[in-house]
Structure formats: C-alpha cells, structure tokens
C-alpha cells in the first residue's frame, strides 16, 4: 500500500558542500573583480560601484519570487508537499534579498537624487513586493495545518506574483501623470562584464541558500514522520 501521496517524508539529498564553497568563493571573486576593474564613472564617480550589489540583489529578489510562483502552481497542480516547502524556502530567501535591495536602493538614492526615497515605479513595486513577501510569510506562520497552509500560501503567492507587474505598471502611470523626473540609467559596456559576473554569483549564492533552507524543511518533515513512526510502531500494519 502506498503510504504518502509523495515522498516528502524521505530525507532530502543534501546540497553538496563543494557547491556552497564554490558559490561563496565565486561571490568574493566577482565582488572584488568588479570593484577593482571598474573605473570611476564620469557622471556618478564611485557611486557606480553600488550597481554590483544593488542590481544583483534586485534580480535575485524577483527570481526568488518567480520560484515561489512556479512552486505554488506546481503544488496546486500536483499536491506535492515538497513544492510547498520549496516555495516557503524561496520566499524566505527572497524576502531577505528584497529587504537588502530596498536598503541599497535608499543608499543609492540619497547621494544621487538627494532623497532617501523616491516614489519611482521600480522602487515602489519592490517595496510592494516586500510587503507581499511579509504577508505570505506571516500567513504561513499563522496556519498550522500543513495542507491548508500549502493551499492558502500557494494562492497568496500566485496572486501576489500577478500583482507585482500590475503595481509596477500603475505606479509608472501615476508617475508620468504627475510629471516627476524620471532617472534613466545608461550602462556602458566596460561595466557590463563585472555586472554579469555578479549577477551569476548572487544567483548561485541565493540558489544555494534556498537549497539549504529547503533541505532543512525536508529534514524537519522527515524527522516528524520518523518520530511518529517510532512512537506508533510503523505505519504499515
């Protein structure tokens, strides 16, 4: 007899430690490389160097939310509990990078625009995304039943993902109607290599974070099941 609809109780395959080291060392290398090789920008001076942390952090944020969206859809479709755990892990890591992106955005905004915050479409929709992440994670913490938590957070995750581009679009419209200055950023090719390398490094690091977080969640599930099986003398009789 089949015990569980999926093998979410099996212990996970642990993330290889070598991958973690690789991600970490690659990250350090790309950061140093980008900072050292980029010349001071004619317009922005050394502020340009913030691009190597800010842009990758933002990219990872949206990628993580993409993972939440896909995992949520997969969970509703296949009812595979592992997808729910993956969505939760990605949301946790994503919210961290989202917060980081916001802080870096403010650190960038202060010297360039003279204000800590501007109601620009990108910044505002990142903030809304952060709030959606917070709502998603608190929903998870307020619901105990795993199945209910999975279904509900999947629905919230999917609707949240639909909402983000809509927020971006509406804030952009709102801004153009109010005629506030926009801030186009051009990127000369000499900065591009450093940026691409950092994008790759951040993505790798975030993927590794999500993997380890997911691994922990899977172990917790397996441990729950194993202790239950021990207490009641096995599932199959």
């Amino acid at each position, binding site marked *: 007899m089949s015990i569980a609809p999926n093998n979410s109780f099996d212990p996970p395959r642990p993330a290889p430690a070598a991958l973690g080291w690789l991600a970490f060392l690659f990250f350090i290398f790309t950061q140093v490389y980008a900072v050292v090789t980029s010349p001071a920008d004619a317009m922005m001076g*050394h*502020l340009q160097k913030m691009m190597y942390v800010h842009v990758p952090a933002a990219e990872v944020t949206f990628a993580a939310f993409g993972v939440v969206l896909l995992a949520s859809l997969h969970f509703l479709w296949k009812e595979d509990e592992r997808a729910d755990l993956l969505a939760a892990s990605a949301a946790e890591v994503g919210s961290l990078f989202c917060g*980081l992106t916001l802080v870096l955005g403010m650190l960038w905004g*202060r*010297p360039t625009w003279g204000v800590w915050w501007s109601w620009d479409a990108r910044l505002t929709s990142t903030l809304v995304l952060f709030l959606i992440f917070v709502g998603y994670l608190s929903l998870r913490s307020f619901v105990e039943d795993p199945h209910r938590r999975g279904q509900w957070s999947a629905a919230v995750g999917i609707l949240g993902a639909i909402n983000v581009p809509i927020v971006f679009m509406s804030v952009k419209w709102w801004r153009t109607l109010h005629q506030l200055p926009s801030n186009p950023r051009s990127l000369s090719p000499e900065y591009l290599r450093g940026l691409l390398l950092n994008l790759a490094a951040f993505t790798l690091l975030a993927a590794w974070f999500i993997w*380890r977080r997911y691994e922990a969640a899977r172990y*917790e599930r397996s*441990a729950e099941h*194993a202790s239950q099986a*021990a207490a009641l003398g096995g599932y199959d009789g």
Partner: protein
Amino acid sequence: MDNAVTNGGIGYVVASYVITWVVLGAMLARVVGAARRARAEYEQAVKGEFRT
C-alpha cells in the same frame, strides 16, 4: 547630485558593500546552521525508531 558626487560618495559605496556582506554572511550562517540542526534532529529521530 552635486556634493555627493564631488566627494565620490565613497561612504555610501562602502556602506552598501558592508551591509550586503553582513546580511549575506548572516544568512549563510543561519541557513547552514538550520540545515545541520534539522539533519541532526532527523538522525536522532531515525535512531529512536530503530531502538524501539
């Protein structure tokens, strides 16, 4: 963008890198710690199963 750019805004650049590194470092420690702890607990639970 006047005075900040003239003195290079180095303080902001340093701050952004420091924050990024601290945050990512903390996350690294947290994530690795959580995975290790969960694995240890799991192995404990499995051992308990065999004992009974």
